[in-house]
């Protein structure tokens, strides 16, 4: 009798289906996974420690680089934590702008997720489709903040500036002739809100294209249905949040249960799964995109009709306008103190959580009253979800591991921090 022993396989850290730098040590019995041991930390940058050496506002751009697929949602949690400690109220227009951009971010994130997930499982085309749509939303990011991804747009007290009145235009170039540039600029002739509205009108059509490609696709279902089943009890034990928890049939969404920003003023539904498998999580996230689209539409409508400030007028927190600064001594002092010393946040501790596209993203800060945080702890949803890898992949084939990673929607920027 030959000596039979388990085979240990090193998966990653340079594996295309590992979504970044995941090193997974798999113990295999034939092709069946007996144990999965994820090794993380290859992208560890000690963001939390770095934040202790920066002023409160200087850490906002670090937040973009955590989950680099849902930039503004990360900033939102961080800014909310500071606002709660400072007891600063964000103007209502600022809240709507944040709500709108959170949802734009959610669509961006889910588009990337479905593109990559499908690519991993074998449907190449999806990535091409979703990146087409992502382009439009990235243009929205760029128009409002100047950066296509790492926006640094939210600030403690509101958002950095109001929405722009015009969109950047395509210029004639070696790649784009005059006629093509004019065509491309057609929906960019109005304001940012017009451009975004045009997108929300087009999006349901795109969305149904994805459904046509995937939902009833035989291969897609063979790869996803009954893979990585998680019961509601286990989902709670393993600390699942967001779409992972809803996929297991628990209707839990912070936007509904503990509303922040303007989520209590907009209408939307929470999709919930039944079986808790990868296919249900896929359906939940797909429906979330449509609901996000609905929220964006309502925000556009409100923002069109209600002008106003987008950032607090408390100049101990947010800088005064350039004009005031140059004509008013008091404002000049505020400006100088803010940009040299920064905000002083009263001593205390707070935990602020948002419904991030991947789950509950929380920021726990301890302040001792200085101009820098004493301790910042980031609660990344992907970290918790990846921790369940062992339990979710046990007894599955090695090919299903790829499906499970895809359905967990992990991004290493936030897991390794």
């Amino acid at each position: 009798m030959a000596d039979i022993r388990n085979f240990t396989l090193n998966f990653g850290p340079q594996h295309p289906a590992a979504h970044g730098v995941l090193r997974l040590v798999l113990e295999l019995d034939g092709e069946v996974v007996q144990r999965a041991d994820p090794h993380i930390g290859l992208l560890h940058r000690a963001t939390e420690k770095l934040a202790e050496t920066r002023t409160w506002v200087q850490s906002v751009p670090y937040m973009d680089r955590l989950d680099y697929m849902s930039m503004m949602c990360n900033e939102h949690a961080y800014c909310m934590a500071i606002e709660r400690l400072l007891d600063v109220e964000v103007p209502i227009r600022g809240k709507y702008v944040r709500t709108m951009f959170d949802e734009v971010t959610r669509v961006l994130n889910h588009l990337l997720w479905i593109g990559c997930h499908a690519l991993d499982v074998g449907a190449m085309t999806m990535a091409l489709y979703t990146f087409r749509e992502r382009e439009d939303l990235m243009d929205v990011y760029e128009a409002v903040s100047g950066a296509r991804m790492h926006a640094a747009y939210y600030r403690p007290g509101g958002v950095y500036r109001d929405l722009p009145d015009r969109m950047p235009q395509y210029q004639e170039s070696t790649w784009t002739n005059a006629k093509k540039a004019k065509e491309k600029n057609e929906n960019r002739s109005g304001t940012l809100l017009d451009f975004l509205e045009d997108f929300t009108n087009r999006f349901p059509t795109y969305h149904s294209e994805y459904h046509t490609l995937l939902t009833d696709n035989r291969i897609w279902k063979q790869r996803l249905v009954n893979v990585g089943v998680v019961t509601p009890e286990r989902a709670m034990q393993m600390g699942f949040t967001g779409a992972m928890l809803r996929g297991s049939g628990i209707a839990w969404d912070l936007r509904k249960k503990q509303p922040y920003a303007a989520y209590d003023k907009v209408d939307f539904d929470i999709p919930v799964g039944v079986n808790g498998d990868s296919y249900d999580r896929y359906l939940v996230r797909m429906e979330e995109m449509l609901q996000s689209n609905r929220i964006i539409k309502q925000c556009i409508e409100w923002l069109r009709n209600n002008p106003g400030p987008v950032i607090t007028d408390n100049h101990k927190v947010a800088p005064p306008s350039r004009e005031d600064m140059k004509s008013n001594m008091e404002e000049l002092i505020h400006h100088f103190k803010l940009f040299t010393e920064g905000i002083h946040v009263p001593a205390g501790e707070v935990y602020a959580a948002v419904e991030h596209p991947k789950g509950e993203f929380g920021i726990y800060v301890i302040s001792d009253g200085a101009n820098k945080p004493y301790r910042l702890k980031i609660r990344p949803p992907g970290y918790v979800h990846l921790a369940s890898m062992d339990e979710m992949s046990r007894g599955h084939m090695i090919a299903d591991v790829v499906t499970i990673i895809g359905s967990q929607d992990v991004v290493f920027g936030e897991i390794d921090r």
Partner: protein
Amino acid sequence: MSAKLETLSQNLQTHFGDKLRSTKLAVGELTIEVGPADYLAIMTALRDEPDLGFEEIIDLCGVDYSTYGDGAWSGRRFAVVSHLLSIAHNWRLRVRVFADDDEFPRVDSVTRVWTSANWFEREAFDLYGIAFVGHEDLRRILTDYGFIGHPFRKDFPISGYVEMRYDPDQARVIYQPVTIEPRENTPRILREDTYGDPAHG
């Protein structure tokens, strides 16, 4: 929300009484502090008692209080802070436990209460050197293989001790002492309480 937290606060009082070292309601959040001896029993009860009902541990992290308030701290150095969430009751709770020994901080592990505490405790061990008694797999998680020290402790420099580079002579990757100088652009400033108060002058 605060009415809800009042209820929770009362439920906590009835269950634990004087086992709670302190109960604090601030910024709309409830924080309890417990002793390391009662920690595990209290955490188990927090999950199992239906009128508390914390099904999920949302976060668990270490804190090093040694330089808090620029030397104003007199208590124990290391704390473990957990954030719990009850989905049934829709409320949250923060639990803080200080480790008794500053040199070798030890706290009971809650991995048997909530599976998801596993990686959080590994992280707190890795970054702060807090040992979790009863944890079955307490390995480093975020830092490099073979890393020495606990980088999030306040006495660990932000630039670290070693850096890694490729050495063309030895044709391999080597570790060497760091060559960068730590630099602070904006100093950390802790103002007195009366700062900016018009009456103070």
